[in-house]
């Protein structure tokens, strides 16, 4: 793990990159990194996240700023701008059941060739997917989902990069930390090594590439 300013961290993200971003309706989203992406005016990004929050909140800011080409999410219903841009053809949106989305990300990070899930069988979600029967039950083969970057909000990070999250801000964060090729973390507090007990580490330090410092 190395430290970086938020501006330098975001400068590492090229136009057209794919980003996994933590958060559930903006809770657990690294807001400082999102703001910097908007400030630097990136283009053609793909975001993989649970939802697009609300206009003016978290990923909602990226939607409004027009820096996205594509969104892969489970829910966009609380952000009318995402729906408007999707219907106008300005933004490609792939909707994935929430449990399938997180398992596709987990599969990527855990080195699996995909997951077999019963969710979506017999619905429009199964279109174009392989069905696999196991012991008489049908499953969809859902493929792993990787990203160039994982953008994470942690509560505590120690000097090595061990992370913890709090309450409902954990959500996608520890899972995307396994599936992004480069992992950038914004932590609420940076603490000395040992302050996070080994049993309480939720993301091990070797997964973290960059920790954004507080100026």
């Amino acid at each position, binding site marked *: 793990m190395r430290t970086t300013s938020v501006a330098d961290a975001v400068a590492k993200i090229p136009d057209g990159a794919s980003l996994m971003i933590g958060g*559930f*309706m*903006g*809770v*657990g989203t690294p807001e400082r990194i999102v703001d910097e992406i908007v400030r630097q005016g990136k283009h053609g990004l793909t975001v993989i996240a*649970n*939802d697009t*929050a*609300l206009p003016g*909140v978290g990923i909602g800011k990226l939607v409004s700023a027009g820096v996205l080409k594509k969104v892969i*999410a*489970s*829910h*966009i*219903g*609380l952000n009318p701008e995402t*729906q408007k841009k*999707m*219907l106008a053809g300005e933004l490609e949106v792939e*909707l994935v*059941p*929430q*449990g*399938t989305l*997180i*398992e596709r990300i*987990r599969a990527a990070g855990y080195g699996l060739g995909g997951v077999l*899930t*019963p*969710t*979506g*069988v*017999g*619905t*429009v*979600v199964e279109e174009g997917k392989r069905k696999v029967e196991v012991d008489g039950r049908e499953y969809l083969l859902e493929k792993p989902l990787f990203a160039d970057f994982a953008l994470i909000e942690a*509560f505590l990070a120690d000097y090595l990069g061990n992370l913890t*999250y*709090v*309450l*409902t*801000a*954990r*959500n*996608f*964060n*520890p*899972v995307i930390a396994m599936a992004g090729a480069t992992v950038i973390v914004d932590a609420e507090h940076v603490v000395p090594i040992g302050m996070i007990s080994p049993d309480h580490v*939720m993301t091990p330090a070797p997964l973290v590439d960059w920790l954004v410092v507080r100026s």
Partner: protein
Amino acid sequence: MDAQTLIAKRIARELKDGMLVNLGIGIPTLVSNFVPPGIHIFFQSENGLIGTGPIPQEGLAQARLTDAGGRPVSAIPGACTFDSAMSFGLIRGGHVDVTVLGGLEVDANGHLANWMIPGKMVPGMGGAMDLVTGARRVVVAMQHSAKGRSKVVRRCSLPLTSARAIDLVVTELAVIGFPGGRATLLETAPGVSVADVVAATEADLVVPASVPTMTL
């Protein structure tokens, strides 16, 4: 009593001590207000919480303790939090005893459509497909009709949420179950006759010889 309260009160009677329960948005959220006294329910919020409590007092909201809509909630003693993979493992893995969800259409075989209206409303399925596929019992809370049209239909015209049939639908007129895969009138609301329900329902209902009135 208004329709939503009646539906929520009736569904609350389905909850038993110690159950893990997931409530959807809308009428289902109201169910937590009517849990019978003396029983403990573990309410799951799919953003990663078991032990969801009521909206906190003014000034005590914590920005990182929220419900699935992102609104601040509290947590009851014994609450626990987890990531989204575990949250949906609980749901898909059959660990959730009951889920209560809203509905756009329920058909004669118990199929549910509740996540999109093509060309009009495309919010995304969120956790609905996993919940209907994986929860042990699926209860739908919805008004019997919308714009004068029965929402209990012969066959869903909207995209299905799951191939799995739901267990129960509760409306302001009736409780309908699906034994043997056929819509069956189990209870009528107070002051509502069997004929009223049949007349208000597009799907053909199996009507047993005796249909009790809902206990609320």
